């Protein structure tokens, strides 16, 4: 197959993912356990007031939140993996996830679990994770800038993890410790339209920025000198796109808690579908990430009468898919 035909196939696959996204969004709105399990017939929405309220006030916000969350996490994962030239990284890499967990835990222990404090704490410490990693990276003298950030991220992540451990140790085991554990399991229960509106501006702005610069991510994946020779400012461009990736991650985890594996596995599946060129990889990751979390959340809320935490499902499905790719030798990295 020549390059032009190959490119057409990739573009077609992105359109296919867009169609699947629309279908998944539409079907998900009709999935639930009222009036009966699994599917709500569209006709019922017109006649049953409770069903209509459920769809408009609970399901649509939740479906939208799940899609945006998945899109944000997997786009951020694709950015992290490309910028750090490493196929095995996601938001846990720069102390971002650990920072969010620490911030949320601190809010649960010291602010009585106030919802605003939990979300604000998670977002604040996720960003602080990035800032600390960058600040520390400038002081490391071994290796190139990427290695500086990798080492700094490991140190900051471990520091936050230790802090979260202390918080768990001092937390009230009856009230606060279960809250911390539950937040860390991750889920979208109780998401309202207001939550979605709070999450959407940051997520939309971050996603728009990452999509706008998606071709230039290819440049940032090269050696810094090479990217510079092609007119890029690798340090500055990398920082801006990482801020966008952390912002969308923070916006998502602040509302949903820890949702693991999405940022790692979805970009890998997309590379199999559309290749590694970031101009097509990013849109594919946005769409497939949205579908992935949406489907997991549908299962989380419909499969049992009680809700399964979303983070458990994404981890379970993510690890299984990762194992399949690993056994097929489809996880590919540098050189």
């Amino acid at each position, binding site marked *: 197959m020549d390059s032009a035909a190959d490119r057409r196939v990739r573009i077609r696959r992105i359109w296919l993912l867009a169609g699947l996204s629309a279908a998944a969004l539409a079907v998900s709105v009709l999935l639930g356990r009222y009036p009966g399990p699994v599917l709500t017939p569209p006709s019922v929405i017109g006649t049953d007031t409770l069903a209509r309220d459920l769809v408009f006030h609970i399901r649509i916000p939740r479906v939208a939140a799940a899609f945006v969350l998945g899109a944000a996490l997997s786009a951020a994962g694709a950015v992290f993996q490309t910028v750090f030239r490493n196929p095995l990284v996601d938001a846990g890499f720069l102390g971002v996830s650990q920072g969010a967990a620490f911030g949320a835990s601190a809010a649960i222990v010291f602010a009585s679990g106030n919802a605003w404090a939990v979300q604000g704490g998670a977002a604040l410490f996720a960003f602080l994770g990035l800032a600390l990693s960058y600040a520390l990276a400038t002081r490391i003298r071994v290796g190139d800038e990427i290695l500086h950030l990798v080492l700094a991220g490991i140190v900051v992540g471990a520091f936050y993890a230790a802090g979260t451990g202390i918080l768990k140790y001092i937390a009230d085991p009856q009230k606060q410790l279960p809250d911390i554990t539950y937040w860390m399991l991750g889920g979208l229960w109780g998401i309202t339209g207001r939550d979605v509106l709070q999450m959407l501006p940051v997520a939309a702005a971050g996603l728009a920025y990452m999509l706008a610069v998606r*071709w*230039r991510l290819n440049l940032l994946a090269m050696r*810094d000198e090479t990217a*510079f*020779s*092609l007119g890029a400012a690798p340090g500055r461009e990398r920082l801006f796109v990482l801020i966008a990736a952390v912002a969308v991650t923070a916006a998502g985890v602040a509302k949903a808690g820890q949702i693991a594996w999405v940022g790692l596995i979805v970009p890998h599946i997309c590379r199999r579908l559309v290749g*590694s*060129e970031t101009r097509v990889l990013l849109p594919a990751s946005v769409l497939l990430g949205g579908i992935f979390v949406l489907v997991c959340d549908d299962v989380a809320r419909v499969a049992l009468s009680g809700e399964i935490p979303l983070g458990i499902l994404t981890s379970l499905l993510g690890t299984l898919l990762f194992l399949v790719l690993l056994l097929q030798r489809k996880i590919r990295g540098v050189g």
Partner: protein
Amino acid sequence: MIELRGVWFSYNGRTESVLRDVSLSFHPGTVTALVGPNGSGKTTLLNLLLGWIAPKEGEIRIGGRPISLLSGRERSRLVGHVAPDEPAIFELEVRDYVHLGRAPYVGLLGRADEEDARAVEDALAVVDLTSKAGKPVRTLSTGERQLASIARALAQDPGLLLLDEPTSHLDLANTRRVLRILRFLRDRGKTVVLTTHDPNTASVTADRIVLLHEGRVAAAGTPAEVITGARLSGVYGVEIDVRMIDGSPHVLAKL
């Protein structure tokens, strides 16, 4: 023309100068080889010409303009760079990879017009990789990857092409391919500057050799002028025998 005047350089936090009072000029249609022992300042000099690092003292001008005043886009249309071991990221295809060389000309989304597409195809043809254009860079041999990097820099269409140890990982056949490409580019009027730790590579390829020793220019001139047994023995600290083969000096370190 590219000119360095009285350039001194030391890395941040270090007092020892890596380059000391270097003044050189590089002309279109020439291949210049920067030669010297490990740590003599070859790569540092190349990075200064790229504008990646700035001199502590002195100045560097390209076409009469200080390199520090050029915008990223302006500079990248003038100077191309090939690193010794570019990582092959994920599975980017060769054509997409070479297209990255058009970054100084295309918009944010990298869309190629006819001229961009032609520049990419020309670059692939020069390095003889057209038949592998649809393959992932990762699947290429080491030599072919180096050729792909050169093609990427050629697609950039710079007047000055900098190559850092372009043949250090290559076998004889691939070394010959790369060196012939460099001479071809010289004949098309490009200014080519390469670093090499192998004086023989420099001798057969370059019109001019700059021998660096402890950050200073120990000698600069034609291969026959620079490559002498006495001078190289002094710089490398070992006994060196120089023989003329086909008019070029060749070096043999005595054991």
